[in-house]
């Protein structure tokens, strides 16, 4: 017999606080699909995805009904497509991407990740082809998402790769100009990319992962915010460690919900269960915002001094609650700060209280990085490369994942509003306070060596 409060707490999380399973992502190894020519490879990729994922959506829907919890997105993440592009052309890369796009559509998922290259130490010809094909791939497919890992703590930062990717971002924006550069929203540049991340656009099946695996991303910023508000209503003078404790307990419940769904989906599909990733991923909906959590804690103006500390508190408490809840925690696990997808963050950027530089500081302690940030259309590749290098440096030096998903909106100026619709949200173009001056440093190219891991003051 359950206690009344137990039932009511769970019901409240689901019905009033928007707890959902944000993504059930099936990882599929496609390395064995390599054939003599790209047409045959594309057919093999389609067949394998169909074989593995044809029941994914149906089973997710069944389980969603059974537990009364929404599973918002069903997605696929394949092993790095660059492995299938060695000795291939950009045209063949597009053909592979279209096969992935078509296969994803046929099994009913909305996004497929894994058009990915891991280039922190160097770039193979296949990886070069993949990166250079991104403007056409991201403009001519709907569901394909791409990621490039340019740095790791062990390898340092591949600046040549950063420069290539920065130029590519400019080209992707131009290729998707009609959609305000939306193609860039499907491209993430990582440092220390996780192999089991279920969230897009950076999901892929990394090295060391099984042949086929279910990873689950759970969200729930609304649940955390309401938990803090209830705590403050009961104890208005509570301290920050009490808030951290409340977040931890809430994260525990949310994480276990994700693991329950993930394990059952995996069992029904007959594949391995990988990880549950509790990442507070906002949506543009009011009440489903990470920014609102910081405001609930007492940071009334996002971007004010203290904001970074609030992010650190939240990120750490979420990780601790998740780690206690499950021994299968992975992915990114923490707090995201995707600007256009979070109405409170987007408003703060629009009002000028939350600057690009403050966001960068916040990424030193959040779970990912500069995410869904709109930039002026005239931002040049050297400046983009500088932004990516700064972010990668934070990840490399702090031994954490950082990422950049920035969108130079063609023709747009600072302050201009852009609306992508749906979960991608809307926002205003941010101002880069110092848009020049990076070129000489960035264009030296080469490699920033891996950091020393001792003498850590």
């Amino acid at each position, binding site marked *: 017999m359950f206690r009344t409060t137990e039932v009511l707490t769970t019901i409240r999380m689901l019905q009033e606080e928007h707890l959902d399973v944000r993504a059930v992502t099936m990882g599929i190894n496609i390395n064995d699909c390599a054939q003599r020519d790209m047409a045959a490879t594309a057919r093999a990729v389609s067949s394998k995805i169909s074989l593995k994922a044809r029941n994914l959506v149906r089973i997710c829907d069944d389980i969603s009904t059974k537990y*009364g919890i929404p599973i918002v997105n069903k997605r696929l993440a394949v092993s790095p497509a660059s492995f299938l592009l060695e000795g291939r052309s950009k045209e063949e890369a597009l053909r592979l991407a279209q096969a992935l796009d078509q296969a994803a559509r046929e099994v009913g998922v909305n996004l497929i990740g894994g058009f990915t290259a891991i280039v922190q130490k160097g770039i193979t010809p296949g990886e070069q082809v993949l990166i250079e094909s991104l403007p056409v791939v991201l403009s001519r497919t709907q569901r394909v998402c791409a990621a490039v890992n340019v740095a790791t703590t062990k390898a340092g930062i591949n600046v040549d790769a950063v420069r290539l990717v920065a130029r590519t971002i400019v080209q992707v924006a131009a290729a998707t100009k009609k959609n305000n550069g939306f193609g860039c929203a499907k491209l993430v540049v990582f440092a220390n990319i996780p192999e089991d991340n279920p969230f897009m656009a950076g999901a892929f099946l990394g090295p060391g992962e099984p042949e086929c695996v279910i990873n689950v991303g759970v969200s729930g910023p609304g649940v955390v915010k309401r938990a803090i508000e209830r705590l403050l209503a009961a104890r208005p003078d509570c301290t920050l460690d009490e808030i951290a404790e409340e977040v931890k307990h809430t994260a525990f419940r949310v994480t276990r919900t994700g693991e329950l769904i993930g394990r059952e989906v995996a069992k029904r599909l007959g594949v391995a269960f990988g990880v549950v990733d509790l990442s507070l991923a906002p949506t543009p909906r009011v009440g489903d915002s990470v920014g609102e959590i910081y405001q609930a804690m007492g940071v009334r103006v996002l971007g004010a001094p203290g904001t970074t500390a609030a992010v650190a508190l939240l990120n750490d408490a979420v990780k601790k609650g998740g780690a206690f809840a499950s021994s299968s925690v992975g992915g990114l696990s923490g707090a995201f700060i995707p600007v256009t997808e979070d109405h409170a963050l987007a408003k703060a950027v629009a009002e000028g209280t939350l600057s690009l530089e403050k966001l960068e500081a916040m990424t030193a302690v959040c779970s990912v990085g500069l995410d869904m940030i709109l930039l002026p259309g005239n931002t040049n590749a050297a400046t983009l490369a500088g932004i990516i290098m700064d972010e990668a440096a934070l990840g490399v030096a702090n031994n954490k994942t950082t990422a950049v998903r920035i969108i130079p909106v063609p023709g747009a100026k600072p302050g201009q509003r852009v609306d992508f619709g749906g979960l991608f949200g809307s926002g205003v173009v941010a101002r880069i306070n110092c848009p020049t001056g990076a070129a000489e440093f960035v264009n030296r190219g080469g490699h920033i060596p891996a950091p020393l891991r001792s003498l850590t003051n």
Partner: protein
Amino acid sequence: MTTKQRPRYVISVLIADRVGILRDITSAVTELGGDIDGISQTVVAGYFTVILTASFKASVSAQTVHTAILQNFGENEASIVVVPYDARRTERPPVLGPRYIVTVTGRRHPRVLKTITAFLADRGINIEDWYVHFGPAGMTQIGEIIIPRVLDVQQLQDEFRQLLQPLGMTGCVQHENIFRATNEVGAIRALIEEQGNVQND
């Protein structure tokens, strides 16, 4: 069912709540050599009720047990029922299927419980437990039910929502594991395996 060696009885007591009721019942049973092997008690609106099962020596009749318990209470204080345990009636659970939790929230309504229980019974759904919580926002009914495997849960949920809508209430039917997952600390893996092993699911 009463065995030749050790008769087993089902004992029920209803009484206005006070301190020491369980002591008074269990001491009577124990002094007759009874071995209590099942018990559930609750208090509703100040009234205490308990149901328990106990096995006795062959010579102890149901009337003897009834009299012994009654002696521990004042005149007209308690309603007591003692009946032989009939194993044939309980060999199989009334319904085989997974356990779900029903929750219904809204303002108090005199017909709501009758309407819901009739809806569930018409579909062969067995209620194992039911309780009501009154809060500032209204009333919440919570039931633990066994849904026959042949029923389509999606259809059941849709029909349930339609049933409650005219009453101004909302409700949902969810598998119990979502509540166990969010409130217990045991491994989720064990929860899934348990679900696969138990006959009820």
